[in-house]
């Protein structure tokens, strides 16, 4: 007796649930169906991207770490975990240290040079109404010109005997130099090329920054008696550009840090190791000497520096939003 009752109860419950669902469910199941269809469509649309992001970004970045922490060599079938041995070798290597030092010196010349010249040119362009786009175009030109070809033009300019630079220097009675073959001048010459290439980029970023300064601040400064261009520059423009400048410094540093073409085409890291820089060392160790573990360890160091700079940049971008 108990069982049937229980089953009738269950039946009753079921039917009442059924009733409720017939009352409410078409909309819900339709919504659920639409949700599922939407999710399915989304995954189909995003599928190729997901696959390639995993294959071409995630897998390789894991790969770099695996190679850096093991003794794997190109073509080897086996590998074993060696901990920090590759990093110890890298750090102990005098060549790597000089490469790191050169990169730092190069950055310390190129970044301030690029940013200050970029700022100066942006201020001058924004300071008047005429020929704006003409000046902007000229200064931006090197940023998009093919560097490996322009490096060849620079080599001709810096040629010890027939180069325009030395001809000019000797014409005005200054000592000439074999810029790219002298270990004391080679970094300086590459840095000059670096500034030439990137200052248009800094200029464009500053021009955007200048446009975002509200006009009424200038009016207020006028009322306060800051009517000279220099006064306005000191009291309004430069303070307002503060956050933008920090941002420009980081973005330019990130680009300059990844300099490769000029080193590869012009100096191959020479003379000696005088112009060896991080990315070139990474390339040479990985693909010319085929030292996979060593190259991967350099890549990890390179990545750590880039990620640090990028996180600082992201932080600054957040702050910039708060300022506005």
């Amino acid at each position: 007796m108990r069982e049937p009752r229980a089953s009738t109860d269950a039946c009753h419950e079921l039917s009442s649930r059924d009733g409720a669902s017939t009352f409410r469910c078409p909309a819900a199941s339709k919504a659920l169906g639409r949700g599922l269809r939407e999710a399915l469509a989304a995954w189909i649309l995003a599928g190729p991207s997901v696959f390639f992001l995993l294959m071409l970004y995630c897998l390789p970045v894991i790969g770099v770490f695996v190679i850096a922490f093991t003794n794997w060599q190109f073509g080897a079938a086996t590998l074993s975990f060696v901990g920090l041995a590759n990093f110890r070798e890298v750090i102990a290597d005098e060549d790597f240290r000089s490469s790191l030092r050169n990169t730092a010196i190069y950055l310390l010349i190129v970044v301030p040079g690029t940013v200050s010249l970029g700022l100066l040119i942006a201020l001058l362009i924004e300071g008047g109404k005429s020929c704006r786009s003409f000046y902007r175009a000229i200064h931006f030109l090197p940023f998009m010109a093919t560097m490996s070809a322009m490096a060849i033009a620079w080599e001709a300019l810096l040629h010890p005997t027939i180069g325009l630079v030395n001809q000019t220097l000797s014409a005005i009675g200054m000592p000439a130099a074999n810029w790219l073959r002298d270990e004391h001048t080679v970094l300086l010459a590459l840095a000059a090329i670096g500034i030439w290439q990137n200052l248009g980029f800094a200029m464009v970023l500053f021009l955007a920054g200048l446009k975002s300064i509200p006009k009424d601040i200038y009016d207020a400064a006028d009322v306060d008696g800051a009517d000279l261009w220099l006064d306005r520059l000191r009291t309004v423009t430069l303070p307002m550009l503060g956050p933008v400048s920090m941002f420009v410094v980081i973005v330019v540093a990130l680009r300059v840090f990844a300099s490769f073409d000029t080193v590869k085409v012009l100096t191959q890291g020479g003379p000696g190791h005088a112009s060896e820089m991080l990315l070139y060392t990474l390339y040479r160790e990985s693909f010319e000497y085929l030292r996979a573990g060593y190259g991967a360890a350099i890549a990890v160091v390179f990545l750590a520096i880039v990620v640090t700079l990028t996180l600082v940049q992201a932080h600054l971008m957040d702050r910039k939003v708060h300022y506005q």
Partner: protein
Amino acid sequence: MSTRALRACQLLSPAAVFRHTVLLATGALILVPFVWMVSLSIKPPGEIFRTSFSFWPVQFYGVENYTKAVTQAPLPRYLGNGVMICALILALQMLVCAPCAYALAKLRFAGRDTLFGLVLIGLLLPHQVLSLPLFILGYQIGILNTYAALVFPYVVSPFGIFLFRQFFKSMPDDVVHAARLDGLSETAIVWKIMVPTALPAVIAFAIFSIVSHWNDLFWPLIAVHDQSLMPPTLGIMVFKSEEAGTDYGPLMAAATLVVLPLIVAFLAAQRWFIEGLAEGAIK
């Protein structure tokens, strides 16, 4: 005072004179490498090695130098490779990135935030760091030293997804709903509504993509060694080492021809270039 006189006055005010003087001077300095390159490309060997400041040669040697540049080295081949690689990369990037960006911007699905996180990680990673595993991957699937090797690392662009997502997000949802009511499939919405409306973003991305890959030396150096596959950046380097710096004229002619296409495009569409490249470099 007439407006012209007023304008002349403004032009001649000390501040304006200072502005134009400095900008013309820095502009001239910026142009020196370009001008010198073109100048050497039209000079005969004798004049190149005679020290002189003159831009225009006594004896015009441009025809000989440029002929040598396109016949002695496979320069037309390099340029053709460059065009093909850039076009292929851009087409694949559009095909892969636009649908994904639409899904991220307009569709609700489980894992959307994770996917966007994946895109942000991709944005953060410099491509050079990935070159070693990508080289191994290319080796494993047996495509090193082919056109495919030059293209495959760039099939998906995290920056492209990011940029299109921003743009698609700013479009009203009603547009999507209306299109669905009209019976358009999700794929059709991407290609017939989203992408055409986001044309400014598409152009900015196209310029960024083409300029970066036309100018890239790092990856082609790793991916190919056959001269017939080389893009211009790599080809001109090989040309330089073969000539060993003795035959400057043709070398400069070749360099000019490699730089020229982007410069011409830039001068034709300056504003687009500056926006696209600045955005791409900041990310």
